């Protein structure tokens, strides 16, 4: 079953999983938009421009980081290679464009983030599945019975852990009664996601750079993100209580 799935979505076809996840997430976010006082079209446009900015921003960021290479081969800027891409730069550009566009539409930040939560949650599931298909984000070697055979060893199925955790978070939030306090829904999702990464990253076997030769940097980032989520949650609750 796993082999069949991995063969079906072998790279570069694993990208299809991300596209399906984005489409499904957008559909679910649209369904919830009205509950947060947003129009379907505004949310749709926000995600559309965000995704366009993600794609263009990822390419531009990669080009800028390797500018001397692209001066020698300028045609590479518009080549179809998906590997000419910087995901961190892409995320930063998408966030900036989404913020600017949201401000132009006078969208309130917290209800918009709440409405976008199903989109982020489904995307997280898609990312887990695409990792599984591509064999990336793989686990450490293990003798546990549920270990999967990957890269010449039985390994922790970290991609499956990641997918299951994202599914669980999505289920919890989707079926939870809508919070009357704007921002709480999104921040709860962010805190759960950070906590799940903090736990699962311990089983990852693809981390080559360690802090102080032993600490996993992804776990440290997840811990900081979790602390920031708690700070934001507390600040939102206090602000909303003051506002009555």
């Amino acid at each position, binding site marked *: 079953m796993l082999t069949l799935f991995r063969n079906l979505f*072998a*790279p570069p076809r694993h990208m299809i999983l991300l596209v399906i996840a984005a489409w499904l997430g957008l559909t679910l976010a649209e369904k919830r938009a009205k509950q947060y006082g947003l129009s379907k079209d505004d949310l749709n446009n926000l995600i559309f421009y965000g995704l366009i900015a993600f794609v263009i921003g990822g390419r531009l960021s990669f080009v800028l980081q390797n500018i001397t290479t692209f001066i020698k081969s300028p045609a*590479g800027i518009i080549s179809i290679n998906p*590997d000419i891409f910087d995901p961190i730069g892409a995320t930063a550009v998408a966030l900036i464009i989404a913020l600017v566009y949201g401000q132009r539409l006078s969208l309130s930040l917290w209800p918009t983030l709440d409405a976008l939560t199903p989109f982020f949650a489904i995307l997280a599931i898609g990312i887990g599945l695409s990792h599984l298909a591509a*064999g990336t984000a793989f686990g*450490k070697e293990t003798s546990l019975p549920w270990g999967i055979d990957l890269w010449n*060893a039985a390994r922790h199925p970290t991609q499956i852990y990641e997918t299951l955790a994202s599914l669980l978070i999505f289920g919890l939030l989707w079926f939870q009664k809508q919070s009357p306090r704007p921002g709480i829904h999104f921040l709860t999702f962010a805190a759960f996601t950070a906590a799940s990464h903090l736990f699962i990253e311990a089983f990852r076997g693809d981390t*080559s750079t360690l802090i102080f030769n032993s*600490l996993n940097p992804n*776990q440290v980032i997840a811990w900081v993100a979790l602390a920031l989520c708690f700070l934001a949650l507390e600040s939102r609750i206090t602000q909303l209580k003051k506002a009555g």
Partner: protein
Amino acid sequence: MFKPFRELLIVRFDKTATTEKRIHFYFTSNSRQLTQNTMSQSQRITLYILILMAGAAWISISAGTSTVGTTSAPQAGFTAPDFTLKTPTGEEYTLSELKGNAVLVNLWATWCPPCRAEMPAIQKMYDEYKDQGFIVLGVNMTYQDDPFTVTPFVEEHGLTFPILLDEIGNVGTAYQIRSLPSSYFINRLGVITEVVIGGPMSEALLRTRIEEALK
């Protein structure tokens, strides 16, 4: 204490209750929840601190050394699986003997359009970087290809880097090949720095990956 529960039952089982009444009840019970059933600030902060302390303990418990690169596998961060193959003229090449050079192992077939499309760029990069210790091993998947088309293909594209024949599929199996072309950039220590599945690779992509492998 039992009043909200009684109200809930009354509204829930009151078939005559209007939608307006139900909505009113929903909101009033929700606001009651907010004021009565939520945790106090000090309780919440204690919970946050406990979770963060547990997280820090988990990071410390799970700390260890990196396992990347200790075994051989066709994935970035691992030692590249070793192989020995011959060129059409019988010259033998062993990957592990090329340590100290940056190597591009390109798996290809004559019938694969993107493989054909990326060959001129690979040849150009080989010419440009070979003096810096860059080698290309073009491994033809001969077991999936017509062996008589290989030499005409090499001549047609003017390829000067070694073309190796994988006649029984040993390299295809060791590199767990699922798509063609597949390219593996290997650094001077014999560790795979980047894997590019599919193509054609542009000159710019080749340049960035080669320069990284040459570091």
